[in-house]
């Protein structure tokens, strides 16, 4: 006979009390002990990563995180993807335009018009779709290598650096697929622009 089915009042209260104690125990174990143990170990083993892979300048001022994209609007810099939240890392997300939403087409057309204005030398047919679309997070730190290369004529004109030199710079910053097969090749825009600024200072 199953003891828990003994429907005396006493055993029912003790049954409930057991459940309450078990629940509190799991709140402590899974909700507090586990994340804190993870935090302690992560901070000991990988302090850089655990604190958000921050990038600092020579004076120790935080420029940003290498994982989080930034908004670049100066013509001398490589630009990132469209972000409806303006790369505000306090939030995340996008406007979730459906493929049939007319606002999506309008936004794309505006991006294309802006591209034509800033990059008269590069026809729109060469511009990769990834550069003119909104990422899912609104914080995408990467662009495709081709998206960087189509910006070279503009940057070369503004900064005076040769196209070959810039091409080299982009190639140096291409991150390959994970283990050679997973994901897509990409360029981290913030790291690329930091390197570009270094070049310009020389």
């Amino acid at each position, binding site marked *: 006979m199953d003891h828990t*089915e003994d429907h005396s009042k006493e055993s029912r209260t003790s049954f409930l009390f057991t459940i309450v104690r*078990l629940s509190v125990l*799991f709140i402590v174990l899974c909700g507090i002990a*586990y994340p804190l143990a993870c935090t302690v170990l992560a901070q000991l083993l990988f302090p850089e990563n655990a604190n958000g892979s*921050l990038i600092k300048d020579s004076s120790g001022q935080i420029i940003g995180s290498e994982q989080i994209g930034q908004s670049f609007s100066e013509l001398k810099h490589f630009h990132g993807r469209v972000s409806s939240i303006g790369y505000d890392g306090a939030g995340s997300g996008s406007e979730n335009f459906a493929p049939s939403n007319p606002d999506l087409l309008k936004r794309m057309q505006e991006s294309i018009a802006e591209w034509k204005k800033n990059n008269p030398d590069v026809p729109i047919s060469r511009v990769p*779709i990834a550069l003119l*679309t909104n990422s899912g997070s609104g914080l995408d730190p990467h662009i495709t290598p081709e998206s960087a290369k189509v910006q070279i004529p503009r940057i070369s004109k503004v900064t005076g650096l040769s196209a070959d030199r810039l091409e080299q710079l982009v190639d140096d910053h291409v991150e390959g697929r994970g283990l050679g097969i*997973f994901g897509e090749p990409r360029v981290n825009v913030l790291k690329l622009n930091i390197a570009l600024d270094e070049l310009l200072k020389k």
Partner: protein
Amino acid sequence: MGIVQMAAVILLLILTVKPLGTYIYHIFSNQDNRTNKLFGPVEKAIYGLAGLKNRTEMTWKTYALSLILTNVVLVMVSYIILRMQNVLPFNPNGTDNMEPSLSFNTVISFMTNTNLQHYSGESGLSYFSQMAVIIMMMFTSAATGIVVAIAFIRGLTSKGNTLGNFFVDFVKAHTRLLIPMSFIVALALVALQVPQTLHPTIQATTLEGESQQIAMGPVASLVSIKHLGTNGGGFFGANSSHPFENPNPLTNVIEMLSMWCIPAALTYTFGRFAKNQKQGWIIFSAMLILFVASLSLIYSSEMRGNPAINALGIDASQGSMEGKEVRFGVAQSALFTTVTTAATTGSVNNMHDTLTPLGGLVPLAQMMLNCVFGGNGVGLVNMLMYAILAVFLSGLMVGRTPEFLGRKIEVREMKLVAIAILAHPLIILVPTAIAFMTDLGKGAISNPGFHGISQVLYEYTSSAANNGSGFEGLRDNTSFWNITTGLVMLFGRYISIIALLGVAGSFVRKQWVPETIGTFRTDNKMFAGILVGTVLMIGALTFLPALVLGPIAEHLTL
């Protein structure tokens, strides 16, 4: 390259099925094995602290009652925490208390393993709430699902009166499976640059001199259990598309395998319990067939892209990139979407609202079927329910009493299976219709035209399937949406759990029927075909009209 990387991940999954399935079998077979030495003392301490003296076997009713009461207590405590997080510790960003209807929605969402989020983690929750409510429920709800599967399997494969002891199963699912695995995955994620810190939001001055705030926190410990527990609720609003939750393709692969491995391995565990390993693999292959079909549709549709945008003259050879991250591209995004809705996790690494119409149909359809791997535990149980139905239908066609695993399927079981199967479309389609009839419902739609129908349909399908992803454009943080989806999540979870534990309870008492030459075999390729056919037929009959009004109409008019 896209197809190669998707195939590689599927291959990795297949490699994990046998070892993990065997391990799970040993956890719950309650026979002596080596892991007892390691975990036994911890479990004894937990039993002692909780006052669990009588760890006797339970009937299905006691098992179900213990499960529900445990869930109820956790829900109540969590609700209190969310309502007063402002005065609790670990709140460096000064987050305010959560509003009542949103708190109601959130605690139900996490207890039912759904993880539908009508709040944004960056601004809506303190670090304490993220840990003590969100992470805690990610463990306990996943463990709840797993023990349901184990109890169901025991009912199908053993003889007697009982399904096991809920509390023992529940504790062991944590100590031997979820906690150790989450710990390892969390550290692997930190090694691959996912943050894990208690520091508040960082202030940065960008390269162009603007100020930027960067939210972070104990991300890795949440992301690991979010996937292993097929939960899906993100630390950040953008979920696994956020570069902190999923910084590179390797973390993407780890996250996909994490959410996929336990539901897949449970088919092997089932085979072990049934002492018929082939039966387990047949169930697995039926799931994989449906999975690959879905993946093919979404991948080809996303690669073709959005014709309206492709017509603008840009280089669209990459496929549809709206709402996707560059590091994942179409292949890793399409695969993630298929895995997360198959395993009903609901984390997203791209925005499902922005998928092409046929691409968006795939997550929707998988949640409607709700048995292509499925969430931890419940997926296997749902597929076995379809298996019982398939046997029943086949039995009717040849005019003999249907049997499954050596037991007769009779009226009582079929009634319960019918309740579970019919509840799912009912709690999706009825609330969808109600939402369209009221301004409170319609007002939330953010995309015009047929896509608006898909948005509402997706929200309720995701709630009913306990998935939790969304067509996130929907402005769903209102009392109407918080309460209706909250109720749908509750029904979606507990109606089928109770009905199917009832099926297990009646199976376990049945006499074995000796196998004869006339026995309908359920462990061969033909049965895999019949099973896939049954799933598709039931799914198509119930949901096709709704799908035609939403994604299919949008596709045809684009």
